[in-house]
């Protein structure tokens, strides 16, 4: 059955995923059985009772209570079996253990922001330790999004007016894809994230010191990486084409016309302000939709973005 599992389902990231797969494969085989039963019966009848001559007599049987009961009660018993198996699995996995590590998630068009209990914040990337339960407590700042981690077989909508939760205990280290599964507009399909499952020591180090790359990568390269991973690229192009936001090409040191009629020169301070307090100065011809990155970027990361934007001239 392993070939079928790996054909139909993504890699397993938790014990729950492997329980899930067992139920999934059970329903698959059951469905295959019933499909073949129906197809074979239909095929056999079509061939066996094909019309040989126009006036061929046909059977006069028109009903049978015994048959009706058989094909009512057997399917009923089967679906009730599936119902209870599935419900049991669902209930067993619905409440997070009390000692789960909590991470706050804020979804907005079109990025995922995470905040740890120690105040560490990240965007579109989250690190968690292997073998420990983690609980994501989620809310949205705009429309409905949905937090979907295929390798964990879990998904939960993220709403603007309440907190929803999703938890799991990862069992394999490495990168797990996070997707947005509830349609949320133009860049819905780019609203992706990475969940890094680290061993305990690596995780603790990361939590205290941040990404290796953040500390050592050359500024310009780091800026380019952040431009992609922190979601700037969903609104800003770097080739001059207009998106939801202005292209970042030829911005640095240029004159920028603002919505209030003033003109400013885009120096490093202006760029910094645009990132941390985007509503302070609105570029002429654009909506004030850029989310603030206050607290979501480390000092060196802001410098890196400025450096990257400067390099786009």
């Amino acid at each position, binding site marked *: 059955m392993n070939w079928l599992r790996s054909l139909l389902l993504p890699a397993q990231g938790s014990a729950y995923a492997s329980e*899930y797969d067992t139920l999934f494969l059970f329903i698959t085989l059951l469905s295959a059985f019933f499909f073949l039963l129906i197809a074979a019966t239909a095929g056999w009848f079509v061939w066996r009772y094909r019309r040989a001559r126009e006036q061929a007599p046909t059977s006069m049987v028109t009903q049978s209570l015994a048959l009706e009961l058989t094909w009512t009660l057997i399917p009923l018993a089967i679906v009730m079996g599936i119902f209870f198996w599935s419900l049991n699995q669902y209930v067993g996995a619905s409440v997070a253990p009390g000692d789960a590590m909590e991470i706050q998630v804020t979804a907005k068009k079109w990025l995922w922001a995470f905040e740890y209990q120690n105040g560490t914040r990240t965007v579109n990337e989250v690190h968690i330790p292997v073998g420990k339960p983690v609980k994501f407590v989620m809310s949205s700042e705009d*429309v409905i999004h949905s937090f979907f981690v295929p390798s964990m077989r879990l998904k939960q909508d993220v709403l603007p007016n309440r907190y929803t939760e999703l938890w799991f205990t990862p069992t394999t280290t490495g990168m797990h894809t996070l997707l947005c599964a509830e349609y949320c507009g133009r860049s819905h399909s780019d609203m992706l994230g990475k969940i890094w499952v680290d061993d305990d020591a690596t995780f603790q180090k990361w939590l205290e010191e941040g990404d290796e790359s953040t500390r050592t990568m050359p500024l310009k390269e780091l800026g380019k990486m952040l431009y992609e991973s922190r979601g700037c690229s969903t609104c800003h192009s770097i080739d001059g084409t207009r998106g939801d936001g202005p292209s970042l090409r030829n911005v640095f040191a240029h004159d920028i016309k603002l919505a209030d009629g003033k003109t400013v020169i885009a120096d490093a301070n202006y760029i910094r302000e645009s990132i941390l307090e985007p509503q302070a100065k609105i570029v002429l011809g654009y909506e004030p939709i850029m989310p603030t990155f206050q607290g979501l970027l480390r000092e060196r990361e802001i410098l890196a973005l400025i450096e990257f934007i400067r390099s786009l001239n």
Partner: protein
Amino acid sequence: MAEGTNYLTETRGLKSWLFTVDHKRIGVMYFWSIMTALFLGGVFAMLVRIELLTPRQTIMSAETYNRMFTLHGAVMVFLVLIPSIAATLGNFVLPLMLGAKDVAFPRLNLASYWIYVAGALFGLYSMIAGGIETGWTFYTPYSTSAGGGVTPMVLAAFILGFSSIFTGINFIATIHKLRAPGLTWFKMPLFVWGMYATSIIQVLATPILGITLILLLMERMFQIGIFDARLGGDPLLFQHFFWFYSHPVVYIMILPGMAIMSEVIPVFSRKTIFGYKAIAFSSIAIAVVGFFVWGHHMFVSGQSPLAGAIFSFLTFLVAIPSAIKVFNWLATMYKGSISLEAPMLYAISFLLLFAIGGLTGLFLGSIATDVHLHDTYFVVAHFHFVMFGGTVIAFLAGIHYWWPKMFGRMYSEKWARVSAVLVFVGFNLTFIPQFIMGSRGMPRRYYNYLPQFQPMHVASTIGSWVLGLGFLIMAGYLFASLRKPYDAPSNPWGGATLEWETASPPITHNFETTPAVTHGPYDYAALRSDA
């Protein structure tokens, strides 16, 4: 063969059509209108599939893509699937099957057609009024804040609802009041039972959609604060309202398809339908229980786990009547005398595709498995197997079955078979890869996607071309048949229901004299001894 005039030739000119109260002409006008909508919706679908050939931009921008899939969904659901069988074949055949001269309220029938056209035009207007990109589900708060085309499209769906309600009222009254002498409830063809169950849902469920859409419009225009969280509303409330209509609507679409199956299979097996009462009552059971399962669209929405459990339970219950029907159709073929003309080929396609649609529903009704599959291509494939593999294939079966009656001509049987096979193969090639993508984690409504999914997207797109070719061929031989002189006998397939007792095409008043019901709707032995 028709001598003298028939309903097509009795009066001439555009006006005689636009202001007709003849149920047959209204059915035919609906037919051409819905075919046009099907063509449009199909073009949108093909464009979506072409865009998905590559993981990034192929032929259109993300905005255009989002508009395309929204239009595809909205046009197919509101303009094609909901009215398809009931408004065309139902309108045409139902009074004939009952031995009646027309439906109970002929003028209301015409009104429903005009409302349909008005609604359709509003829907198309949304394309130029800023476009709509919310998806056909109009989820709040996205739809309360999205661009200009939402208002006309929501109005369109609202208007179309009345068309649907009028048809429903008309059919219920017709079935109660206009049956020919001797046609008791349990002598009615099962098609009529299916239409009856459908009409009940249309009349009871559609007003809920109307109210929901009006609330949505008020939210958009006056910010009344019912769905938008920023105004103190609850976005989940919209989903509850929406699915309270939109799940039953699945049965508005599929029950008429099942109704056609219950006619075609016995006729082409020359055998009385097996389990008449089981099939009739299962339609009613579906209509009733179908009202209480809407929450299965919301297992991961944030509704309470207890609600989820109850909805999952009821969803499994509502699956049983559909299974019962499938087994009864199979039993009807047992020891029959089966011939595989085009309508029967489509009926066999239906059996296979609808079986897959139904069985994959088990994964989605089951609450734990649905969590992973919800909003992925698995769901997309599932509902296409039910809506296309079920409703559209049954519609095609019905068109091929009643075409001689409607237009008085036979089409090319050879090309009809070629096209039926192409449609079947193309459909499977399009949607089976989507099941696999979906369970592997490919979300729906994605413009860009992870490169690992490309081979399956390519296969799916190629499938859509095969499917498109099947439809082109179909259009070809159907149009070709219309250019011939009338050549259809009054009863080409040997059916025992009343519509086959009048000429093809029928006269304006359907029957020369009110037919007397002397045998059951599936009594082929009686037919033989008559002859």
